[in-house]
């Protein structure tokens, strides 16, 4: 019997057990080592990357950033992902405000429509969209890619914004309304500043996602080449370390953007609740 011992409160982290800590460390290694390998090999001084490493070089980065095709597709990807991220956030925000603050009949139906594109396999969405765009072939290419990525990202953009806005103090909004502020004024002077971190976070996530998405874009791309499409194509043949170099830059940027957005989302939930 453990007579006399009183255990209260949060278990002590020090008692977490060495095994559990070590196991968690292993899982983190599993999550990060593979992408670290791409970055490591981008510095390898050999035309075909592999162990043992011959030496360190920055040549592949120079080669990647002076390759006109690679750079063209990089800028195409940035432009398209930025457009769809802004568009997705713009249509997600009003819906999130309504869902969070107002009584909506058929709420379940609305939620289902918003969750469906997340659970339907992307290859199915891609095929469906390309058959739709056969009716309006002029849109195939950049506009179709922007539309496709907006469709994919607007769903979780709405859900994330909705869950953040739920934590808002409605008293701020009601106070402003009672003082006679117009809807527009309430939006621009109260809601927008308070929701700015969440909006920015959602936009960054949508951008990162759209930037790296391959299969849906491939279906509707026509002759437009985004960076994932170019990288995919180059993986069919002999891999150039220049691809490693550009990939590692993108991986690092994606990690930073997604870390920033996660931190903003968490901050928002703390400051507003």
């Amino acid at each position, binding site marked *: *019997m*453990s007579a006399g011992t009183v*255990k209260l*409160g*949060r*278990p002590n*982290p020090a*008692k*977490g057990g060495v095994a*559990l*800590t070590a*196991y968690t460390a292993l*899982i*983190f290694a*599993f*999550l*990060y080592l*593979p992408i670290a*390998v*791409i970055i490591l090999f981008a510095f390898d001084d050999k035309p075909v990357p592999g*162990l043992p490493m011959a030496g360190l070089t920055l040549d592949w980065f120079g080669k990647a950033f002076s390759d006109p095709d690679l750079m063209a597709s990089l800028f195409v990807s940035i432009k398209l992902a930025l457009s769809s991220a802004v568009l997705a956030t713009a249509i997600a925000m*009003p819906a999130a405000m*309504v*869902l969070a603050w*107002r009584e*909506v009949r058929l709420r379940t139906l609305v939620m289902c429509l*918003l969750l469906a594109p997340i*659970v*339907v*396999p*992307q*290859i*199915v*969405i891609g*095929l*469906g*969209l*390309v*058959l*739709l765009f056969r009716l309006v072939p002029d849109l195939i290419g950049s506009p179709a890619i922007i539309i*496709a990525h*907006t*469709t994919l990202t*607007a769903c979780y953009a709405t859900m994330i914004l909705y869950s953040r806005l739920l934590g808002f103090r409605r008293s701020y909004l009601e106070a402003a309304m009672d003082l006679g502020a117009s809807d527009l004024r309430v939006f621009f002077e109260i809601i927008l500043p308070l929701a700015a971190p969440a909006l920015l976070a959602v936009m960054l996530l949508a951008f*990162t996602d759209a930037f*790296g998405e*391959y*299969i849906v874009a491939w279906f509707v791309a026509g002759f437009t080449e985004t960076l*994932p499409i170019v*990288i*995919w194509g180059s*993986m069919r043949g002999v891999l150039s370390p220049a691809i490693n170099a550009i*990939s590692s830059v*993108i*991986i690092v940027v*994606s*990690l930073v*953007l*997604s*870390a920033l957005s996660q931190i903003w989302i968490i901050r928002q939930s703390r400051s507003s609740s």
Partner: protein
Amino acid sequence: MAGTTITPAASYGSTAQAASVKRERGHIIAGLAPVLLWQTLFFVIPMLILLVYSFWTMRDYRLDYTFTLDNYVAIFTNPIYFKAFLLSLQVALFVTVICAVLAVPVAYFIAKKAGRWRVMLLVMVIIPFWVSLVMRAFAWRLLLGERGFINRGLELTGVIEQPFSFLLYSPTAIVIGLVYAYLPLYVLPLYASFDKVHDNWIAAAQDLNATPMRAFWEVTFPLALPGLMVGAVFCFIFGLGEYIVPALLGGGKSLMISQAIRLEFELRQNWPGGAALSIVLMAIVMAILAVSLRWLRPETAR
């Protein structure tokens, strides 16, 4: 007396109320319209188009618009499609089980043992999920190939003489790649569930003389079951329809259903065939969701 003074005020109140109800409804419609219209145009309608196409056929590279169930009959009689569905289900099942086994201790550690590091660790679990799947699968090609990191590493240290050839371009590689892709997604709902288990309940069990192990299995784990189910459902349906990982790591000897869909579309130019495969795949996903809805509801309602 009193009635006459109240009546005008009351009627004024009711018209104001009617006006505000009207205004409220206007707000709701205006707010929801953009996203709902967008999703109808670019999601619901494409899915309906797929359904319509699946009843047509392709003859000599031209669409034949006569209604037929041939595409569906082909799916259930042609062993190639049947095998593709079977492989997809098997892979998804393996991925789900492995992800669950890997994720439970990590989610538990982050929720209960990580102290002030928990937010940081949770963020660190999630962020690789947002790196392009093309690049994450590409990383595993560098690792698993015959001249890849793992084989060369084992050769250089003298553990093996011949490289393992089964690592890349096999169902094993697909499972590894998908586990890697969806592990972060599994940790999240599990973390949320473990986080909701009060420390006092665990302490109470231990005060009643349960060993930490027994307290975990009889108190913490059953309470975390909703998170386990949510993670399992999403892991399974995402694994089932994933294209990028099997295409890059599977080698193409045995196809998953997503690869069969692209093959029908790209190589055979058989859009109705691809559409029928897509509809069946979607039906499986919807069936899984319908069956598991009772576990999902408390999570989505939050």
